[in-house]
């Protein structure tokens, strides 16, 4: 099954966020509220527009994902990396060293 969800970045700290079921913004992709129709997507984007006006998030947009066995997986490599973090990096090496 494919669906669309809404994502954005936190205004203060820039972190990647997903619009969750109860209108909350979650760092966890799995908590994102899926839209399976254009109307549902528009409703999610309306919530996101409000959150941008309230300065919770910036640059909100809708993206596609597939749900396989209940696990959401973004369709694009860009969104997979955005959800999981860099696949490589000095930040990861530093984290491991700690």
């Amino acid at each position, binding site marked *: 099954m494919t669906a669309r969800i809404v994502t954005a*970045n936190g*205004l*203060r*700290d*820039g*972190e*990647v966020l997903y619009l969750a079921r109860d209108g909350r913004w979650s760092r966890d992709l799995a908590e994102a509220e899926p839209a399976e129709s254009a109307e549902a997507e528009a409703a999610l984007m309306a919530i996101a527009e409000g959150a*941008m*006006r309230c*300065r919770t998030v*910036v*640059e909100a947009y809708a993206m596609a994902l597939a749900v396989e066995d209940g696990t959401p997986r973004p*369709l*694009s*490599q*860009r969104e997979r*990396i*955005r959800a999981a*973090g*860099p*696949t*490589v*990096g*000095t*930040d990861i*090496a*530093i*984290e491991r060293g700690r």
Partner: protein
Amino acid sequence: MYRYDEFDSALVNERVAQFRGQVARRLSGYLDEDRFKPLRLMNGVYLQLHAYMLRVAIPYGTLDSRQMRRLARIARVYDRGYGHFTTRQNVQYNWPKLAEVPDILAELAEVEMHAIQTSGNCIRNVTADHFAGAAADEVEDPRIHAEVIRQWSTLHPEFSFLPRKFKIAVTGAARDRAAINVHDIGLQMLRNEAGEPGFRVVVGGGLGRTPIVGPTIREFLPKAELLSYLEAVLRVYNRLGRRDNPFKARIKILVASVGGDAFAAMVEEEWQALRGGSLDLPEEEVARIAAYFAPPPFGALPAQDTEFEAMRFEDRDFARWCRTNLHPHKQQGYAILSISLKPVGGVPGDATAEQMEAVADLAERYGLDEIRVSHEQNLVLPHIRLRDVHAVWQGLVAAGLGAANIGLVSDIISCPGLDYCNLANARSIPVAQRIATRFADLDRQHDIGELKLKISGCINACGYHHVGHIGILGVDKKGSEFYQITLGGSAGEDASLGEIVGPAFSYDDVVDAVETLVETYVGLRETGERFLDAYRRLGSAPFKEALYAGH
């Protein structure tokens, strides 16, 4: 090194205060994102794939130990413990919080640094030969003129909203270590027949989706007239450059559309109206700036150092490192020392806070307190006494900075790619890491010899792939990462653009393809022939054959 005067300090501190106010207004709702975005970009703050990114200017790539320690402190306190040195001699932090950026800028201002004009359609950080002031082959220290250009271009009201960004590079020598032929303006210092120093002016070079090696529009520009001539170039561009399409807005498109000669004629005409005016710098002002770049107090040393020679004889690892990472210095008894930020398995251009501090300590103790950032994403200690080279090397090895691979196949330029960048189509860093790992055997790398491999994760070409001996461009093919290979590019004085060798390779196959290319070269080279020279002699046919014959 240049030191801020009262005007520089006032300007940078005012800018910090101004941006602090802008961030506060954004967070409290007085500014919306549409109004705030251009303001944050003017201060080097981007929103990237995972977080904000702050780009800090390192004018002409020159730093002292105090500044490097401050970069380390910022990495540790405000970011995730590291920084990324870029192909434009800047440093980028990948994880700053917007609310803390004003504090970061205030910390930078304390050590005479800033993020002004590291983004936006203005004249960006002026880059220069990273061996400036130390190279045996230079006419003059190019940083004197890079600093003159910095002062002229900083907050220049007429050039703050150009059709598109504008990048200037300066080299002091015939040997081009600053890639001047692929910049909006490239300046090469040379002497005319009377022996007077001046510039050859290249305009309209660039990479990105329309790569062009820029034409020379003036063979010799007297030093004193540098700014009036640059102002004339910028005026013509500002007036005629396209503003309707960002992909056609760089000066290279304008120059290519009218032709180099016609563009030169337009500049000449504009210049006649500007010459002899207030932009001609008085001798004493140039002398004042030049004094900041006066040679440091070099000692009178013999050309050879017996201790250095003995260590090179005794220690094979040290000798191997010296072969690639040491360069001739203009001052007898000294060497220029390159610090590779390309350890096998590392991220090209990244340095941890601890590594930055180690470099700062070594520069302070042994290197007359000077550090450089190269456009090839490495660091340089430009003034090391031969007798201290071994001690510095040991310090570098202890800090994990001892890679002996400058100019070799694992000394890869790589953009951040899809792991960090909002614009990328494919990952760059893991491809660089896998190639470096494949060629990890240093004996093999030394046998292969000079080979400049450059990777970009999208057509914007931040990884300079068009001018790599081997260039790799990441593309998105129906949601999968593929890599197009170009051969025969060069960023040097013999600049050329690489040619696409054939269909792109998958993420899994691209490393094998690179190895096939290298093995083909090794099989066909003549004694002492570099990869680039072999490619230019042989053409693409044997490489195509090796890559695609079985397909």
